[in-house]
């Protein structure tokens, strides 16, 4: 069984479970369900049993467990559980994993949205995002992509793979369509093809120098349909002046605050 079909299976099974709940429950009331997605590379079976036991004792109600041994991941469906309880359980699970999972684990928390029984795609999105999640000690909350931002795209041009990957994930979770380029030339190609709403670019790139890239971007897009945010290590006044002269909309320096960057991007849209 390859990995892709395993993913399908997990979200399909989640959808099936919610669907059953809907049909066998009170159909006038929307299904309320907290979802706890857990991945653990080491001690998978042990983890499964431990989490199942933990939830049962804490909640005094068993959870519906959908295990996917191929992906070393499992979904725990907590029907009729208030949000606060789901969150509390997630914290407990995290504490538990810290002890047994040897670092490589991830926990994601989601809440079934209204009329989920008609929307299998939602489950697909949840599992897909969870699959991409790197091992982390933090609990990740799933926010649904808002319909309004669905079409908004961000082009990220940065030579640093780590920064790129991190921002890509964060912006994706914010609901943007994220295009990433590792150098100036690739960035320019993507810009031409996709016409993104926001360009976030470093000044220090390989292939094309940053200032020239800015001129080219403005030259290709004279009525400034795309907003440009310069996102760079360069903290020199003169460089900022030059960039604003070239028509950029914002200038964020590294080391950066992700919240700050996101807020600035949001404001430009």
């Amino acid at each position, binding site marked *: 069984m390859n990995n892709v079909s395993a993913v399908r299976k997990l979200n399909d099974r989640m959808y099936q479970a919610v669907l059953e709940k809907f049909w066998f429950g009170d159909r006038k009331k929307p299904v309320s369900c907290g979802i706890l997605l857990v991945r653990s590379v080491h001690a998978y079976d042990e983890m499964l049993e431990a989490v199942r036991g933990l939830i049962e004792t804490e909640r005094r109600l068993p959870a519906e467990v959908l295990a996917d041994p191929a992906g070393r991941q499992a979904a725990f469906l907590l029907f009729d559980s208030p949000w606060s309880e789901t969150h509390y359980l997630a914290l407990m699970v995290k504490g538990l994993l810290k002890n047994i999972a040897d670092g490589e684990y991830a926990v994601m928390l989601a809440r079934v949205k209204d009329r989920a029984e008609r929307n299998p795609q939602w489950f697909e999105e949840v599992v897909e995002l969870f699959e991409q999640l790197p091992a982390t000690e933090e609990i990740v909350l799933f926010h649904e992509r808002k319909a309004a931002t669905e079409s908004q795209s961000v082009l990220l041009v940065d030579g640093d793979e780590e920064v790129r990957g991190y921002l890509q994930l964060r912006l994706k979770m914010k609901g943007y369509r994220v295009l990433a380029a590792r150098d100036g030339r690739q960035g320019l190609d993507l810009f031409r093809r996709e016409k993104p709403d926001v360009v976030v670019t470093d000044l220090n790139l390989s292939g094309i120098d940053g200032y020239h890239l800015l*001129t080219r971007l403005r030259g290709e897009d004279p009525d400034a349909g795309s907003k440009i945010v310069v996102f760079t290590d360069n903290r020199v006044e003169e460089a900022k002046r030059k960039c604003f002269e070239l028509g950029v909309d914002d200038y964020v320096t590294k080391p950066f605050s992700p919240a700050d960057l996101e807020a600035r991007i949001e404001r430009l849209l």
Partner: protein
Amino acid sequence: MRELLLGYGTVIMYYVMAVSLIYFTLMFLSYRGIYSMIKGAVYSRFQSLSGSAHAPPVSLLVPAYNEELTIIENVKSLLTLNYHTYEVIVINDGSKDNTLQVLIDAFELKPKTDETVHYAIDSTKIKAVYYNPAHPNLYVVDKNNGGKADSLNAGINLSHYPLICSIDADSLLEKDALIRMARVYMENPAETVAIGGNVRIANGCVIRDGDVKDVRLPRKIWPMFQTLEYLKAFLGGRIGWSHINGLIIVSGAFGMFRKDYVVKVGGYREGYPGEDMNIIIKLHRYMLKNKLPYRVAYCPDAVCWTQAPDTYRILSSQRKRWGRGNLKNMLENRDLFLNPKYKVFGLLTVPYNVLFETLNPYFKLTGLLALIGYVAMDMTHWPILLTFAAINFLNGYLLAVGSLLLEELAFRRYPRMRDTLKMVGFAALMFLGYYQLGVLWRLQGHIEFLRKNNSWGVMTRQSWNQEPIGKPSTVTTGGEA
């Protein structure tokens, strides 16, 4: 005759002992110096530092003479360095090919009329300055032919920033090279007048988009020997010299200078090769004469990749030119020789260069004659002779391997084990002919000097993307024994 030969033998023995002692001391100093350099570099965050306003702006000066094949690629690469504020000034030194036109076409340059050039030092008059606001960091200067030194002087006259950096048009800088050098400058901005960079041989490496992607050893024999020679000179020699502030040369391929002092000493000397050594000698002289505290630093982790000559003809022409330049510089500055007023530089660096670099061929040659004499007069004790040869070889080999070890400890640019072993092997092979050729070329250079041959010698150009052919660059190595 016997007496004479015996006396000579004694003298030469001391000579060899002295030179070995110096080399080993330098190697020792290199090992000591590299440790603090590496530690400093490891704890520096260059990515962040490159955007800090504390790093001073730099003007890169790129003299170009008949470089139409490679210039675009190199300028593009120079424009994407990891540094917050710098400009690239390409000086077209009256090229006979289309160097200027290809630059104008590639970067859509227009003549810049509002640029006033302040002639702080003498140089051939600048005909025009080309510029394009879409490439705000690039200036192209057009002037009549006047030589490399003259081009650098013209570039200095146009430059807008307090630090200048000379770069050969056929060399590639690593993205971090400038900020690594600036870090060394920032350690002591008041006293640092010049910083040398590490020049490495790019032959055999995979180069894409103006970046050295995969470091490999050259496949041809001449660049291979030069790779080892450069490693030895730069790592085993220059780090040590810089440790005692006795560096006599910062390679013309990649060196950074404080503009105000370069202007004070009158810029680069025109009309003769060896201008890169000359400017450093002038700086030493000026600072010591005026009793100013100063240092000429060396930064081994700032790397410039250059194309080494890969045919006998071009290599010999390059080495003859170095020989000429070295002799000229030593003759011009003979008053520094053992002059206590000039401290380490006058008492150590210059005498070392005169005795062990400039005069080296004569010692080697007379040594050979003496050897013939010994054999002819039946004075040889073969076991002793062989012991001497073996000791000599071991000395040299130990130094070569020492610099390789330094490379492996500190930089590890050659990731493949096979390459390392190959270098260890070739370091031994160099004793069979290559060093001897070096002596011969230097001697030929001296002969050219006496005949007042003042030309630059042969060069060829080929694009970076093809199998590189290379040309003589202006790096002088100081350490062939």
